[in-house]
């Protein structure tokens, strides 16, 4: 996969966030050897106001780095990040600081993202204190009370307690409250549910949808689980080894994946249905993904997915595919994208819609 290109971007004025040719590299080993990890290589995408863009890929694909590079933490090596009409990569420290409240982030580890020594009320009020909110202590308390209530926590019983007294799901609610207390426009969620049990995961996903509606948020949702991403996203961008593979509306991506890697990701989702024998489902596609993720220090030439791709040919090594449109707003960076028949073959019967689990009769 591996694609570069900006053809999939929408009209510039429309997007709340527009990332172009984003590059993030980290030095490895002795500085004089000049070796770098190509964490993100020429990635472009945009998010319209009110939209949820899902960014999906495995560990090491650069999706979290992308999220942090948008926040300028750390600043990207190259490329442009336009947020709300401002080019963030050029902003000085103080000006950038003033933009920060408009874009907030939620992290994967609910325990690590809360200061263990501070009471929850303080943690959630901290952003207000940083910005010297109006209304003083009373105003702050009212705001914290409101936002905790919004995320489903009771101020009176929660505010005085420390994070370790809460469950993982509750800690994630506190993180969400902290992110929302400044009324941001953009919320970047970096694997917000992957540390949680499925039952709690559902609560948090529902909560994020509710908060998106209530606070009028635009969301960048980063995760490795395509089923989770699809549940909350309008549009999904698939990443592999620092590059974009495919960008499409969620339902379209699921219905007709065009990139072989997307097909693999879809086939890997464990189906909560005993009639889908995992050994068979998407067997062809999965067998293809036998190898290990190549090193981001020395990524493959051409298409970065070619070393593990069942459809790879010589051209894939020589020439890097560029994102191009294969359907209505469906973009893929692949020289040999899955056609309709090929898509069905690669997917087996695995994602035949209708195989929904048992339901209560009155459901």
């Amino acid at each position, binding site marked *: 996969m591996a694609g570069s290109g900006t053809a999939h971007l929408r009209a510039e004025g429309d997007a709340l966030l527009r990332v172009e040719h984003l590059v993030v590299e980290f030095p490895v080993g002795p500085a004089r050897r000049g070796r770098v990890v190509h964490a993100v290589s020429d990635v472009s995408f945009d998010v319209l106001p009110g939209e949820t863009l899902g960014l999906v890929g495995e560990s090491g694909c650069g999706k979290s780095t992308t999220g942090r590079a948008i926040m300028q933490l750390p600043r990207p090596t190259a490329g442009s990040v336009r947020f709300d009409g401002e080019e963030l990569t050029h902003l000085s420290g103080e000006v950038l600081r003033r933009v920060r409240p408009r874009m907030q982030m939620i992290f994967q580890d609910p325990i690590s993202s809360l200061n263990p020594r501070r009471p929850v009320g303080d943690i959630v009020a901290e952003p207000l204190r940083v910005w010297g909110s109006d209304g003083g202590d009373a105003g702050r308390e009212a705001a914290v009370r409101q936002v905790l209530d919004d995320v489903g926590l009771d101020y009176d019983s929660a505010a005085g307690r420390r994070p370790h007294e809460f469950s993982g799901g509750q800690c994630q609610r506190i993180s969400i409250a902290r992110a929302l207390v400044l009324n941001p426009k953009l919320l970047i969620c970096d694997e917000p549910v992957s540390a949680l049990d499925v*039952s709690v995961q559902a609560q948090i996903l529902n909560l994020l949808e509710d908060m998106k509606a209530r606070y009028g948020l635009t969301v960048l949702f980063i995760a*490795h689980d395509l089923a989770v991403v699809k549940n909350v*996203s309008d549009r999904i961008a698939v990443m592999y080894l620092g590059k974009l593979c495919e960008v499409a509306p969620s339902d379209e991506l699921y219905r007709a994946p065009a990139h072989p890697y997307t097909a693999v990701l879809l086939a890997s989702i464990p189906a909560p249905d*005993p009639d889908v*024998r*995992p050994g068979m489902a998407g067997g062809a596609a999965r067998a293809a993904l036998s190898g290990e*993720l190549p090193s981001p220090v020395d990524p493959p030439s051409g298409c970065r997915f070619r070393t593990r791709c069942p459809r790879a040919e010589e051209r894939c090594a020589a020439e890097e595919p560029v994102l191009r449109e294969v359907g209505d707003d469906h973009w893929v960076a692949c020289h040999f994208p899955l056609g309709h028949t090929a898509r069905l073959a690669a997917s087996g019967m695995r994602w035949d819609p209708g*195989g929904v*689990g048992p339901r209560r009769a009155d459901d």
Partner: protein
Amino acid sequence: MTPLLEVVDLVTHFVTERGLARAVDGVSLTVERGRTLGIVGESGSGKTVLARSIMGLLPRAGVRRGGKVLFEGQDLLGLSDRDLRDIWGAEIAMVFQDPMTSLNPVVRIGRQITESLRHHLQLGKAAARARAIDLLASVGIPEPARRFDQYPHELSGGMRQRVTIAIALACGPKLLLADEPTTALDVTVQSQILDLLQAQQRERSMAMILVTHDLGVVAGRTDEIAVMYAGKVVERAPTHTLFTEMRMPYTESLLASIPRIEQPSHTRLRAITGRPPDLVHPPTGCRFAARCPYAQPRCVEEEPPLMPAPTPGHHYACWYPVGDPAVRAG
């Protein structure tokens, strides 16, 4: 013939400053030779403690235990640590959630495998090495001879989990306990590891207990599933029956909370509200009642026993089970 593993009314209570935490509270299970049992539940349901109680891996201090863990008819609870060590690895082996912490970071992976081979099978150095390399190859590790001399940090998360599986399989155990073996891994790697476990289990006709919080993980890969909630088994059935004719509302809720890839995006998930009960002061009646959408007065007064369903091998603990016409009438 006695079953391979028979857990009878197992009780594991932890002594805490607040009182007894009833982590496992009267669990009975049977695993036949070569069969696969899935144990499913949320964090705090006691599933991990159950797995460790079966292994006998819990400390003796501060733990109250009861019941029986019969492995080939022998009660493991009565064994000394020394006798248990002869069983661990050789008869029962375990794969843990986090491969980074279950591998010793400063010991080459080869030695971590040969250790148990030499201990249990009394193999010589060269024979153990050859056997270990075979094992690494069999769990899908490329260039096993080179990997043999590497340290855990030189491998990816998926490869590390393959190594822990190789270690577990080294002495050909009759029962493999896998505790959330894929929770720390990516989805693509998860399916590879589950495939590997399944293939090895069939090839060696070994019995396996797969502990997880995700019904999706056990759906296509187990013969039978036990659903745990607040220290108790609340439903137990052959896998297919469980998914098609579940009776326990908790099972239904767990399944409903999984986001389905085939649903349109922005489909609202049916989350289970609230959190599991405090195991020091568990509620009277059904422990799930407070979160159950179908709870009735009787549920909070009287605890439902594990009762048989009309479908064979199916047990559930609910007064108003899913799919019961009487319930829908009321």
